[in-house]
């Protein structure tokens, strides 16, 4: 019902509303969690990769140092100097840093002008910034190095330029940072659009609710028809609203009906009593007035009870008290109850029950009352010497009740109308009755999930009442 949204929203600002919405907060929380995961994995990749690379370099340096020490043992100091000079020379390692000092600490060979302070001659891996001898102009190098003390007190240093490793580390950091930004953007955009979608669909439901609160009980939540949770929620809400509307309508009908059918007898009672009081009648006529009033009150009470029974059946409150019964037993019982009354009027009431059981989940009292109402009508309207039939049988797998009379019948166009309350086709109201009998039948039929069809009995009325097949 988006078109029916009320123009003057009394809700707070859009941002506040967004912040206040569960969908948005959910999206935000999931984005934060997402970001945390990306940062964690990034950090893991970053530290493990850079540590691995640096360890490789330091291992290489360690191996080289051991190689040079071996050379010193085999070829002595001159061999070592030659090797150091070769490696630090223009044909040696471009990224290498070498220094050999005598025991006094003066440089003997290599490409450094002096022993760097942070390095101890104990073989430990140390990172430091340093300048090579000969290129003091350029920026200092980031170097990883190890120092070694030779047996004659000379010191040997081997190092590697770490700038390549450093720039790899920097670009890795950049890539990971970019990845984080992109994934955050995607996450929050997704969360935003998801929350917008949720908000819109929930807004739709609240807009419908507001309209219903405003008094338009006919409104229903619109559906997407895609069968998701919101669609199912909309279906349930609409079914609930249908039920509430039906109950409300029923309630209104009951009050209307009460007003309609109780007003006139109450008016008669009031008038009669007032008249009797004003005329100062003798005790015999006062007694008559009281008796008439009592009879009138009995009629009112009857109407009242019928309406309550209809309301009970329609509200479905007694659905829990449905029990399995055999329709044949009830049919035979009710027929037996009415047989003498029919015979008294010169009518023949025959009950024809099936030989197979007809199990029906039923509210025995209400069903019996409905059947009694149908038989009562049949007896009331059937002309003398006519016959009334009550059959209980299985038709197309469904327990079925058929009641046929020989009365005037009901014209096809009026067959639906008779189930409404207080409808009496006989406008002269020459037959007694409240006009509620068939309304009760209709309500009881609905309670039992059954259906009633009225047709021509040629002549007379045929009522076919089909119950759901027993499982």
């Amino acid at each position, binding site marked *: 019902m988006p078109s029916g949204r009320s123009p003057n929203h009394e809700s707070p600002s859009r941002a506040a509303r967004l912040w206040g919405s569960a969908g948005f907060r959910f999206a935000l929380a999931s984005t934060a969690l997402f970001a945390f995961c990306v940062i964690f994995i990034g950090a893991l990749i970053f530290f493990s990769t850079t540590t691995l690379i640096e360890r490789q370099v330091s291992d290489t340096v360690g191996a080289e140092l051991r190689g040079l020490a071996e050379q010193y043992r085999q070829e002595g100091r001159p061999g070592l100097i030659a090797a150091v000079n070769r490696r630090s020379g223009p044909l040696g390692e471009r990224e290498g840093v070498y220094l050999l000092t005598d025991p006094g600490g003066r440089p003997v060979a290599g490409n450094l002008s002096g022993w760097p302070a942070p390095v101890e001659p104990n073989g430990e891996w140390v990172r430091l910034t340093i300048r090579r001898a000969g290129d003091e102009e350029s920026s200092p190098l980031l170097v990883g190095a190890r120092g070694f003390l030779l047996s004659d007190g000379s010191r040997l240093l081997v190092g590697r330029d770490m700038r390549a490793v450093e720039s790899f580390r920097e670009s890795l950091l950049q890539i990971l940072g970019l990845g984080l930004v992109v994934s955050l953007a995607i996450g929050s955009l997704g969360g935003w659009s998801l929350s917008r979608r949720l908000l819109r669909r929930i807004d739709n439901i609240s807009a419908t609710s507001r309209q219903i609160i405003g008094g338009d009980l006919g409104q229903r939540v619109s559906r997407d028809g895609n069968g998701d949770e919101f669609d199912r929620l909309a279906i349930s809400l609409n079914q609930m609203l249908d039920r509430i509307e039906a109950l409300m309508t029923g309630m209104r009908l009951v009050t209307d009906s009460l007003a309609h059918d109780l007003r006139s007898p109450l008016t008669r009672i009031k008038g009669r009593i007032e008249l009797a009081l004003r005329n100062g009648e003798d005790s015999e006529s006062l007694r008559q007035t009281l008796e008439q009033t009592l009879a009138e009150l009995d009629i009112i009470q009857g109407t009242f009870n019928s309406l309550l029974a209809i309301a009970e059946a329609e509200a479905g409150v007694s659905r829990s008290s449905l029990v399995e019964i055999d329709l044949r037993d009830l049919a035979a019982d009710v027929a037996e109850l009415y047989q*003498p*009354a029919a015979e008294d009027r010169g009518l023949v009431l025959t009950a024809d029950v099936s030989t197979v059981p007809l199990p029906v989940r039923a509210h025995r009292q209400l069903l019996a009352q409905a059947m009694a109402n149908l038989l009562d009508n049949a007896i009331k309207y059937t002309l003398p010497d006519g016959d009334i039939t009550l059959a209980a049988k299985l038709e197309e797998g469904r327990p079925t009740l058929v009641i046929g009379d020989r009365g005037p019948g009901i014209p096809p166009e009026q067959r639906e109308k008779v189930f409404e309350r207080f409808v009496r086709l006989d406008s002269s109201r020459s037959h007694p009755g409240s006009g509620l009998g068939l309304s009760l039948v209709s309500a009881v039929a609905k309670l039992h999930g059954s259906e009633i069809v009225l047709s021509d009995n040629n002549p007379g009325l045929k009522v076919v009442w089909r119950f759901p097949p027993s499982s």
Partner: protein
Amino acid sequence: MVPNRGGSGVRVLIVEDDEKTAGYMAKGLGESGHLVDRAADGHEGLFLASENPYDIIVLDRMLPKLDGLAVLQALRTQGVGTPVLILSALANVDERVKGLKAGGDDYLTKPFAFSELLARLEVLAKRSGAPGVQTRLGYADLEMDLLARKVKRAGKPIDLQPREFRLLEYLLRRAGQTVTRTMLLEGVWDYHFDPQTNVIDVHISRLRQKIDKGFDRPLLQTVRGAGYALRTEP
């Protein structure tokens, strides 16, 4: 409120909070020869019912302080077996079942006719001392054998349909007492609604044809404005 003592009728406790309803019930029952005590709320009702031996208690369901069903349950827990007739504005069958399950012996919906109340109350009060299983019932020269399902009047067999048999059995068990049409519909047919046509009257007149026709003294009497009774004099 001190309970009445002495006299002949049935000792009745009315627990009803509506002053006027209680008043007119008490007046009517008093005029019918019964002794009436009244309680206006659940606590007082429970107290009086536990302290005094009544023949019957008329108990409204909706009471101040303690609900009628709670009073009933408390009484039954204490072992007080006095028959209880529940009065209620709640008419539907499920409510009736609830009342009877709580230990009520009969259930009458408001508004009710006084004759209905009186008939049910007298039948219930007498039933309290009833013996266990009976195999034979009888009244005047009418005999009923419940095992052989045979009925005789003055030694002459009477042929009854199953329903007529049950109707007569119901009347015989309450011989001398008035039973209303509603009581018959409930007791014999187990229906708790009001059939618009007076179907019960027709059944009674059939039964009357069979048991009274050809005998000097009619036994099945019509009690005007109330119902029927199996009695030797009208």
